[in-house]
């Protein structure tokens, strides 16, 4: 009994270590602020932890986990008491060296992306994040969203158009 319990815990730990970094990143792009991200990430993996023993493998594990993450992130957005977040992480106070400047530049781009993503509807944003950033296949995206594949495609193409427009509004050059 105890052995089984330990084994299950170990399995969960391995799952967490493999998937938590990307889920954390996805949550950020789905609009979960930096201060809330650890808590929301924990919420996601509480659910994973609880349901993992019953996971039947009908979908890929990562698809299943992303599906949970989408729902938890959606719930998070709906909560009225969500803390007001600064739009971006704090930038380094000084950035003198080349690596620091590079990191600063990266963060500025990510902040720009977040502002652009914020202009999208949640449904389009989810597709875009999962496909363009998390590199799920469109089939996996549809599975995570629990929507027909064609719907996922339609959302993706529409989301791309909106992203391009938002990018231009943010000061990017039109392609």
């Amino acid at each position, binding site marked *: 009994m105890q052995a089984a319990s330990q084994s299950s*815990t170990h399995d969960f730990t391995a799952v*967490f270590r493999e998937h938590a970094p990307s889920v*954390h990143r996805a949550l950020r792009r789905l609009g979960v602020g930096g201060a809330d991200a650890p*808590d929301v990430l924990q919420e996601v993996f509480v659910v994973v*932890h*609880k349901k993992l*023993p019953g996971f039947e493998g009908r979908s890929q594990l990562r698809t299943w986990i992303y599906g949970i993450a989408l729902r938890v992130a959606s719930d998070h957005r709906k909560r009225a008491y969500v803390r007001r977040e600064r739009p971006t992480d704090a930038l380094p106070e000084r950035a003198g060296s080349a690596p620091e400047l590079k990191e600063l*530049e990266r963060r500025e781009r*990510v902040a720009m992306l977040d502002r652009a993503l914020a202009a999208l509807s949640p449904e389009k944003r989810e597709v875009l994040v999962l496909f363009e950033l998390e*590199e799920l296949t469109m089939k996996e995206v549809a599975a995570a969203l629990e929507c027909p594949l064609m719907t996922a495609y339609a959302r993706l193409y529409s989301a791309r158009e909106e992203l391009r427009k938002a990018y231009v509004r943010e000061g990017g050059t039109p392609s």
Partner: protein
Amino acid sequence: MSEEREPVRLRDDPAEDAGLRAMLEAAQGEHADDALLERVLAGVLAGGGGGGGTSGGGGATAFSKLAASTAAAVAVAASVAWIASTGVGPATPAPPAHVVPGMGDAVAPLDAGPADTGRSDAGPVATASEEDADAGRRVLSRAPAPPPDPGPGDAALILAATRARVSDPARSLALALEHRERFPESAATEDREALVVLDLAALDRGPEARRAAESFRARWPRSAALPHIDAALARTSSP
């Protein structure tokens, strides 16, 4: 149904604007801090562990549990009837005031993770020690003043405290203490007091955490939060 070709991702499409591609690539370079992930993992295992994963329902950690328990608590409004039916269960809400003093200076616990875990089911089943039973009888026989109305502030505050436990235990503790002050005896009292212990432990305030834990154990000897509290105390550096 046609088999669609997988689209080329924007950042791999040379026809796409270079700036837009760079923006998407930048997000790929974001990595969560390892220490943060370890804290989250510990939080999940502590709060949702309930049995290390075998137990189907014991997974909830601080948040979900708390959320669930708080929601339930608010729904029940800490009703006396519930207390009566529970018989003095360990997780009994609206505990007698005499217990609170026991918590000493410390801070309180709520147990976000752990506590919740078990408490929702533990409530009614709880096995009560003689002391608990006495305390419970006292509560019931005093015909109590109606339990404080939890109100939305109660749930929101305790949820906020629980949610902050992993990322910001100091804030979580402050919120839990505020909850203690504003809602000394609410349906979320056990959660709150467990959370205080966990926050203190997370802040490495060992002596205070231990004192708070002792009081917690005395008041809720069968609480499902206790294993998690013990685990958290074991991680503190102070003796």
